[in-house]
């Protein structure tokens, strides 16, 4: 009984014809492949016989330097290895790069198509993940959160006395902002991996409805026009989430970055929910510097969670912001309550060491976020700042 597809037939080289013991079918859709072996890019090639049958990732890589738009050619060129086309020597490269020249995103539309296909057919169940549209390439979406990290944060929150409800909310916010990031990548013209240049950020979606994914706005707006003081502040916010960001240009990471600082979100679950102002979250952490007792309220492992980076000693810069943030928090009563909790908790079991540990290695990362509230065109109730904007925005 014929069970398996005939690989030779798919290569166009089966000599048995009807006598063949294997099934003569053209390349099947990825889903119907019982063994699951197949190419990642299969979705592009559903009609085409796949010469390899199993994971031709190498093949797809082989033409990385060439016209990426001509994808069909890649699969016909069965035996060209990446190093051959890119000119890299086959022996080990001196800079320890195992991968030869990779996909270069020469054709953003093609990259966009890949992204669309991936998201259409293969969205993973676990959403808090980084993503690259091309294997071996840097991530387009940064901000990985593993299953264990999320669970550990929830356990820490519970230990600190946060209600189950607020933990759930925090996680839901995290999820929503991450989904918004993926949406962004899908909708906007493809600009290259997040880890590349700062310029490659998602352009401000001027047409985006205000109510829709405020995190999008946050991501987009500030990067290009943040004056330094604010940037430093953002840097603090970013530092909290350094673990999530990939390269120097973390901008695209922001909406995820800040809200996902677990300790922060824990403090301001509602503030984040209503305001979508990462600043609120960033503040709770930021204020730790001037206010060590608050820092101490975080159990060590949460404080260091995903973030061994330094809290930027640009404390001064956020003092102005701090006050406005606290007002932001107060605008949603519950969050303030939570914030107060953290303060009171901080008095017990103070571990100054915690905040010190936070100050270890701050990579310089510019992250937009908190002050983007000032750039929003329309404020939802509950997020209207009560203070005047910092001078930067006047």
């Amino acid at each position, binding site marked *: 009984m014929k069970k398996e597809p005939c690989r030779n037939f798919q290569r166009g080289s089966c000599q048995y014809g009807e006598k063949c013991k294997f099934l003569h079918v053209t390349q099947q859709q990825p889903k119907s492949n019982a063994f699951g072996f197949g190419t990642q890019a299969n979705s592009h090639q559903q009609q085409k016989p796949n010469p390899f049958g199993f994971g031709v990732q190498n093949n797809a890589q082989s033409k990385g330097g060439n016209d990426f738009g001509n994808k069909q050619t890649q699969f016909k060129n069965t035996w060209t290895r990446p190093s051959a086309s890119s000119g890299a020597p086959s022996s*080990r490269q001196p800079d320890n790069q195992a991968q030869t020249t990779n996909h270069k995103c020469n054709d953003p539309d093609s990259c966009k198509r890949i992204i669309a296909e991936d998201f259409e057919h293969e969205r993973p169940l676990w959403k808090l993940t980084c993503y690259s549209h091309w294997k*071996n390439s840097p991530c387009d979406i940064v901000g990985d959160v593993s299953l264990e990290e999320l669970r550990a944060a929830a356990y820490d929150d519970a230990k600190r006395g946060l209600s189950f409800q607020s933990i759930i909310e925090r996680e839901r916010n995290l999820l929503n902002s991450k989904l918004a990031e993926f949406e962004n990548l899908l909708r906007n013209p493809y600009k290259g991996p997040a880890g590349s240049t700062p310029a490659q950020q998602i352009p401000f979606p001027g047409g985006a409805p205000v109510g829709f994914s405020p995190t999008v706005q946050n991501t987009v707006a500030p990067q290009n026009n943040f004056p330094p003081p604010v940037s430093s502040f953002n840097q603090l916010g970013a530092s909290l989430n350094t673990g999530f960001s990939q390269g120097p240009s973390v901008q695209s990471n922001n909406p995820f970055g800040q809200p996902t600082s677990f300790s922060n979100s824990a403090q301001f679950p509602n503030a984040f929910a209503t305001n979508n102002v990462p600043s609120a979250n960033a503040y709770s952490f930021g204020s730790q510097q001037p206010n060590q007792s608050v820092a101490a309220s975080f159990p060590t492992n949460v404080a260091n969670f995903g973030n061994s980076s330094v809290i930027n000693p640009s404390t001064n810069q956020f003092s102005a912001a701090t006050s406005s943030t606290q007002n932001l928090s107060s605008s949603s009563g519950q969050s303030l309550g939570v914030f107060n909790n953290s303060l009171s908790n901080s008095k017990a079991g103070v571990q100054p060491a915690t905040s010190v540990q936070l100050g270890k290695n701050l990579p310089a990362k510019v992250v937009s976020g908190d002050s983007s509230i000032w750039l929003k065109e329309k404020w939802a109730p509950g997020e209207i700042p009560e203070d005047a904007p910092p001078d930067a925005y006047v």
Partner: protein
Amino acid sequence: MASVHPPPAPGRELSNPPTDGISNLRFSNHSDHLLVSSWDKTVRLYDASADSLRGEFMHGGPVLDCCFHDDSSGFSASADNTVRRIVFSHGKEDILGRHDAPVRCIEYSYAAGQVITGSWDKTLKCWDPRGASGQERTLVGTYPQPERVYSLSLVGNRLVVATAGRHVNVYDLRNMSQPEQRRESSLKYQTRCVRCYPNGTGYALSSVEGRVAMEFFDLSEVSQAKKYAFKCHRKSEAGRDIVYPVNAIAFHPVYGTFATGGCDGFVNVWDGNNKKRLYQYSKYPTSVAALSFSRDGRLLAVASSYTFEEGDKPHEPDAIFVRSVNEIEVKPKPKVYPNPPA
């Protein structure tokens, strides 16, 4: 691969399982002892054949990984940032050292005589367990990583570290000053687990997107031509795939075939050389969090423990199943080519 016979039982369930999620489990290299780390802050030592609990060691926080040193002692990695050594016979444990964030993975290298830990503080640390307790005496080195460490695996003198953001570093344990190779994962989404082939030629890497990539250390064209990836742990439903994270990979010590466990509750056994699936065990009550073959490959321990991939929801209790492994499930079946026509 349609099965004619009724599915076999999932294996013998161990008594006295941990009271919360199981993060990892390992068979000893010397016996059928099984070391299990759990979110209930304990490390438990079982005699898997006898189904008895031989020891239980409390930690300050959830224990995320554990490994054996020899049959009398082991090590643990905890979310309370500590790395501990546990002496089973004395029922004692002491702190070998600390990271700045939860310690996610731990391995003991027989080749180097060192304990290697990876943490969410983005560092790898090597420890000499012969030193007295206290970080000053035991810490051999700290090696920064591009991102938080999610998984690591050893074979011979090679160490593979997989971090957040899809980075992979390959080290030679004899020279840790810099990675031997720096890579990005071949897969598109978050790395879940990395395991080296027992023959030392490469590693398997799994992600949250229901895929496993088979990679090779040798950077020559010939070797790199062999690498591939395959889809697994997916469920077709209403025209779409539900794509599950692949949480665990375990290599059979004798045959070099490997088992993968995913959030779909299935354990699959694969032949990496022939690119085939050899077997699929019947579905476990909930997500498969960890897998381990015994030293002779006769037993497979499966941690059936919900990993919260779908948030908080009612789930089956955490359990450890130990099943006897049949040769037919794990032995490679080389391709049989039909005879050419006369």
